[in-house]
């Protein structure tokens, strides 16, 4: 398949792996965090870690949009979905995320009308087709998906659609990275920067990481060779004593981002003073809400939501996993009480979540897998 296979070529991967190994200083270990859940997915899906020397550890970051939604927000969404005249719409991977009282799937089984959509525009279409129902879109995601939510609200306003609203849970990546950098129990050598988010925000917002914290960051694409190349670029920076923001994904990511998309988000949404992240706790200025001017499209104001905070289950160590302090298998409940069938923590829910990816794709000891496939 064109534009895909080129980035999955095993020969190129082997050559790149040799150069990566050549850059590793003997006796030194390296910890790189891939911030984005999409990268985690690629790493496991293609078995990319088989190409890395033992000295390099990849740490899975907080960039899985489903994983960071706190349980209380899921409960709020389910509460909205439970109103008799409501059609709740959601991306597919939100369906199984557990709140304090079950998931969208459970709520659907109990009679709520919850529909999977592929874009907020699909939700708007459902609103047009069902004028006597209130249609709510469960908006989740980082800067990547916020523009499409904003554009949909703008379109609803332009078309005068009155029965459509958004339950806004959009989050922003920079404060989360900052929270991780400020966390005392973490030692990282560099970051693989989120490619999709960067198509919107560009590369400039990461400069404080390179300058202030002295950690190199390479914005990377989502094919396995993209990630291998970005690891090579990180090692090269370290070897040359540099700490910069570099863009491996220049074929998609403009340095300045997407001004038009940012303008749309800014028109419709504003930063919340603080927002709770699953596992990471409250982080200030880390999420978006709908502006007063668009209150008519804000489910948070239209519905009387309970807004109860639900503490993460005690046994769950999602926070440590999200911060990269623990590997998924080091969590006390990983794979026993917490599995993809019965997830306790959100990291186990989405296929992008570090725990689910590890459970589904990498659960077995690498050595035995290598022997079996030799």
């Amino acid at each position: 398949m064109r534009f895909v296979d080129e980035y999955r070529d095993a020969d190129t991967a082997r050559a790149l792996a040799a150069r990566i190994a050549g850059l590793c200083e003997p006796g030194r270990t390296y910890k790189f965090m891939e911030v984005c859940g999409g990268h985690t997915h690629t790493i496991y899906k293609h078995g990319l870690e088989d190409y890395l020397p033992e000295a390099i550890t990849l740490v899975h970051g907080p960039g899985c949009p489903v994983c960071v939604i706190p349980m209380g927000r899921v409960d709020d969404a389910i509460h909205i979905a439970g109103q008799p005249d409501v059609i709740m719409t959601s991306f597919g991977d939100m369906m199984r995320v557990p709140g304090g009282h079950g998931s969208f799937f459970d709520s659907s089984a109990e009679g709520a009308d919850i529909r999977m959509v592929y874009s907020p525009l699909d939700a708007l279409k459902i609103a047009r087709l069902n004028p006597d129902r209130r249609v709510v879109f469960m908006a989740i995601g980082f800067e990547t998906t916020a523009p499409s939510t904003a554009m949909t609200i703008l379109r609803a306003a332009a078309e005068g659609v009155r029965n459509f609203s958004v339950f806004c849970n959009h989050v922003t990546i920079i404060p989360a990275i900052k929270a991780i950098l400020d966390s005392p129990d973490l030692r990282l050598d560099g970051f693989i920067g989120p490619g999709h988010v960067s198509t919107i925000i560009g590369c400039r917002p990461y400069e404080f990481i390179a300058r202030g914290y002295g950690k190199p960051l390479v914005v990377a694409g989502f094919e396995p060779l993209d990630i291998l190349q970005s690891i090579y670029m990180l090692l090269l920076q370290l070897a040359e004593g540099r700490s910069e923001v570099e863009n491996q994904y220049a074929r998609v990511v403009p340095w300045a981002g997407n001004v038009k998309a940012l303008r749309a988000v800014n028109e419709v949404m504003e930063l919340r003073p603080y927002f709770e992240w699953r596992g990471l706790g409250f982080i200030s200025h880390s999420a978006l809400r709908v502006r007063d001017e668009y209150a008519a499209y804000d489910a948070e104001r239209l519905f009387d939501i309970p807004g109860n905070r639900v503490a993460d289950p005690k046994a769950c160590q999602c926070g440590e996993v999200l911060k990269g302090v623990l590997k998924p298998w080091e969590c006390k409940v990983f794979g026993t009480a917490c599995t993809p069938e019965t997830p306790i923590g959100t990291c186990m829910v989405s296929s992008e979540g570090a725990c689910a990816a590890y459970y589904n794709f990498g659960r077995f000891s690498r050595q035995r897998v290598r022997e079996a496939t030799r």
Partner: protein
Amino acid sequence: MTETRATREEQVLERIDRARRRRARVREEHITMAHGAGGKASQTLIEAVFLDAFRNPLLEPLEDGAVFGAGGARLAFTTDSYVVSPLFFPGGDIGDLAVNGTVNDLSVCGARPLYLSAGFVLEEGFPVEDLRRISASMARAAAAAGVSIVTGDTKVVQRGKADGCYVTTAGVGLLERDAALGVAHARPGDAVLVSGPVGEHGVTIMLARGELDIEADLVSDTAPLNGLVAALLDAAGGAVRCLRDATRGGVATILNEIARASGVAVVVEEDAVPVRPAVRGACELLGIDPLYVACEGRMVAVVAGEAADAALAALRGHPLGAGAAIVGRVRDDPPGLVLLKTAFGGTRIIDVLVGDPLPRIC
């Protein structure tokens, strides 16, 4: 340090494996869509509710059909319900799907399908013309497979209580060969074959629902497999260990059932799995793996290693097996797992999904 860490990881993984072998238990209070998707949730429901209630030696292996002796003959018996939406899709409709599905379940038991029943649940208001089309399609499919629909039932429910038309078929077939087929029969050294490109039916249905705004030149692979199975058993008879048609849950789920039931590892080469470009493209866009997408006219065959080439030739010699390929091998370790050598050159586990593959958000 590295060693202790590796040992600790191994211990954790063993603990997980023990947890996985625990008795199935349904935690949900209500049926969710995941229970019908053919993945872990379906398995749990079947084992914890149905197997628990009906337990008997014929049901216990949980094969595609039951095989038993009656009046000197050996028979295979199976049933399946069809709730596909839309009812009509490129390459087929609920009618030929319902006939082919039951024909295939009998065929992969090693039986020659003979007689089918057909039960209809119809929603008030359903167009009679559509029912005629479905019935005509069933008649054509039955004729093509050489079976007769010899008994049936019709029920009508109020508007809104069903989605147009549901069809249930059951079938009996005659076992004329000695072949002992079963998911528990795979042995290290065996070869794993698929009879053609995977995932076409599932992707066709997803696109036919019109929710994705993706267009592709794809038709469902729905087809009766009895002729193909006969060709394979004629050529490789006693060397064939196991046949399964890869329906819900796709090839990945079938391979997991085989690995688990036989206590072996299955190693699949991603490069060797035939996938049409349109299927691959749609799956890439949606972030799902074609190995988990349903087929309705493809089967997985496990064959003794030395008979692999003969089996492949037999499959390829039949029109429905023209795209057949050897996709992997059976190994002894690690038992119960399916591993994939990725085209990229890495390795990963292929597990059973909990429910339907869900599209990813970005």
